[in-house]
């Protein structure tokens, strides 16, 4: 059977990731720590379940009123002095950022962690325009030094261990001494970043929650770099996907608890920023301009389909990655797209199209670990099944996911039709199982059996099926 381009690319990445023993050890150790911390924090299962239900209903309520909440957010922000920009595509969002940066004649941008900026490939875009964009989150700083992209949505350098970082700092940071002491590595990064914060002319950040009622942008972080990026430079640009809006301020505490607890097992992060306005007359600090860029990039199409909409409930905690047996073995880079793991597997094919990323939906055993830990109860397996169906749906499809039908082949469609015929024709099945019983041990190793027996012995096809044995035992056939 011919393989589509996304499948071939994924296979190459998978082989590379699985062959990297260091990567697998790093991931396993980090994911075990993160999931243990999470479990310890949410040890009271009943209380957690209640909180999770609350989180789900807050996100669902927000999504059910999404257009009006976004309008309210814009109105509130504008009244507070925040300038709101709408971007339908990532190209538009990049252009908006560039325009703001150019207007201030800025050359140096400092960035807090933002997955939307990754989605926009903002750093690369700014670099092409001759503007330096420096990541200031420690993890992001590390991977930027190494010319990499995040391998995890919360802990971007999780694929690296201490020794790898020690070498990286020594090689890439001028005059940095070689050290494997974590505190000393931190000190090296802090010293480097401190100077950059001072020199930063525009600060860029993400948004964890945007409160429609008050026009407040909430930013969750652990290092204080987010606060520096949003307060030290004279201009702050906040980037958000349009689903990040919540209705009321009182919706934030439960979501915050779910986010930090699910992500790192922390009851709360070291820093929690609430940004409501630029510097007001008479105030001594804070940016003089705050811009909010609200990105669509395919989200409104997801919003428009009732069964796909739950994808947008996500609060980007990363718990589904930490608990996914597949992510744990591959890491984020193997997925080949910005958002990896279970959330990436449901989100990316919808944002970029099945023909670009449909293979991600096949990277699941439907074990359900993601659904079990998701703090807002996203029905991952249902959405994955729907995407797998869309991948084969030609012509008009029920959910109209971009690139649907790309994987359709007559051979595969026919083989499922034959499978259905076989399983609905008892006479055919009887003959089939007799043949399988006789020849099962001598089947040619082709097709699925070929894949199966690469790492396993062939299935032990029994000489007599349960159907036959049941008949021989005289079990009632209900006729």
């Amino acid at each position, binding site marked *: 059977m011919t393989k589509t381009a996304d499948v071939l690319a994924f296979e190459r990445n998978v082989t590379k990731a699985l062959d990297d023993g260091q990567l697998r050890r790093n991931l396993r150790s980090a994911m075990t720590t993160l999931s243990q911390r999470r479990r310890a924090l949410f040890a009271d299962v009943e209380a957690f379940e209640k909180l999770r239900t609350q989180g789900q209903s807050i996100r669902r309520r927000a999504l059910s009123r999404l257009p009006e909440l976004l309008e309210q957010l814009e109105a509130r922000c504008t009244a507070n002095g925040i300038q709101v920009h709408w971007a339908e595509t990532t190209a538009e969002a990049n252009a908006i950022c560039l325009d703001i940066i150019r207007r201030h004649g800025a050359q140096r941008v400092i960035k807090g962690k933002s997955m939307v900026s990754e989605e926009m490939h903002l750093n690369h875009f700014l670099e092409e325009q001759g503007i330096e964009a420096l990541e200031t989150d420690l993890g992001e700083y590390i991977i930027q030094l190494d010319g990499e992209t995040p391998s995890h949505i919360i802990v971007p350098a999780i694929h690296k261990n201490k020794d790898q970082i020690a070498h990286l700092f020594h090689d890439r940071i001028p005059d940095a001494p070689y050290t494997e002491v974590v505190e000393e590595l931190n000190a090296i990064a802090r010293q480097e970043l401190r100077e950059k914060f001072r020199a930063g002319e525009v600060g860029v950040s993400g948004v964890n929650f945007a409160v429609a009622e008050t026009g407040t942008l909430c930013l969750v972080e652990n290092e204080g770099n987010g606060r520096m990026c949003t307060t030290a430079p004279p201009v702050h640009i906040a980037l958000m996907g349009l689903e990040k809006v919540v209705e009321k301020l009182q919706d934030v505490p439960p979501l915050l608890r779910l986010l930090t607890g699910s992500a790192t097992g922390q009851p709360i992060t070291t820093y929690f920023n609430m940004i409501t306005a630029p510097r007001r007359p008479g105030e001594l600090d804070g940016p003089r301009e705050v811009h909010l860029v609200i990105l669509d990039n395919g989200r409104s199409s997801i919003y428009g389909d009732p069964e796909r909409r739950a994808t947008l409930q996500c609060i980007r905690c990363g718990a589904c990655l930490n608990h996914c047996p597949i992510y744990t073995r591959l890491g984020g880079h193997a997925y080949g797209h910005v958002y990896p793991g279970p959330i990436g597997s449901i989100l990316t094919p919808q944002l970029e199209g099945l023909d670009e990323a449909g293979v991600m939906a096949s990277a699941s055993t439907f074990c359900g670990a993601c659904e079990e830990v998701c703090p807002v109860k996203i029905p991952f397996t249902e959405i994955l099944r729907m995407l797998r169906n869309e991948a084969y749906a030609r012509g008009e499809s029920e959910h109209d996911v971009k690139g649907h039908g790309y994987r359709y082949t007559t051979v595969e469609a026919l083989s499922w039709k034959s499978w259905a015929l076989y399983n609905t024709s008892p006479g055919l099945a009887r003959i089939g199982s007799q043949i399988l019983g006789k020849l099962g041990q001598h089947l040619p190793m082709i097709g699925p059996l070929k894949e199966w027996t690469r790492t396993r012995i062939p299935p032990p096809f029994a000489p007599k099926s349960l159907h036959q044995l*049941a008949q021989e035992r005289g079990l009632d056939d209900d006729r």
Partner: protein
Amino acid sequence: MNDPFPAPIPRPGKVYYFGTCVIDACFPQAGLAGVELLQREGVQVIFPQAQSCCGQPAHNSGFPDEARRVARHQLKAFARDYPIVVPSGSCAGMLKHQYPHLFAHEPDIEEVQRFSSRIYELSEFMVKVLQVRLEDRGEPIKVTWHSSCHALREMAIIPYAKTLLGQLKQVELVELQNERECCGFGGTFSVKQPAISAAMADDKVNDIVQTGAARVLSTDCGCLLNISGTLGYRQLSIPTQHLAEFILERTQ
């Protein structure tokens, strides 16, 4: 003391048995063991010869029309109002929890819901409905346990399976370090993503080996096919066995 597992329905005289396609083709003895365990409790077991597969392979692969076609065939084969006992957490999960999704927008949804409400996984049925008490007649043995993901999460029947195992006094259970982690089977996943599947199965086998157990037990023959296939490929001689077969072997 309160009964931790109150019976959901009165003890029936007759039950249907859904053998599953993996058991049918590869592990019929496990299927028969389940039948005998039920019969031994005085329950008449009906095995409709028209039954086939639950439809999960198509449902999970993006072919819902074909899955529905096969599902409707089971609806017809199990038409009477008896409980349906299934010796697999995964197939039971499909029949009980996935059918209502699969038929959510179909005209026969109510019939499907009635069908799904009659589904029980075998160990669940033995503990909850039949309230069996097992007497162990076997030699002392150290075993380990593999929880299939659908038995664990979708059906949540692992407590019942372990209750039965706990009644076998000569059996020492050594749990896996990562018991809650998937073995990498995933039905068609195992052949559509063979490299990832193999890596997962390998880790599962390593976990099994470190327990020092003499046998691996589970409620799901799909997982056992994957695990025993990998054990065999690595020339490790730790037998795998369906829980029903293990129980029958030790209690007769």
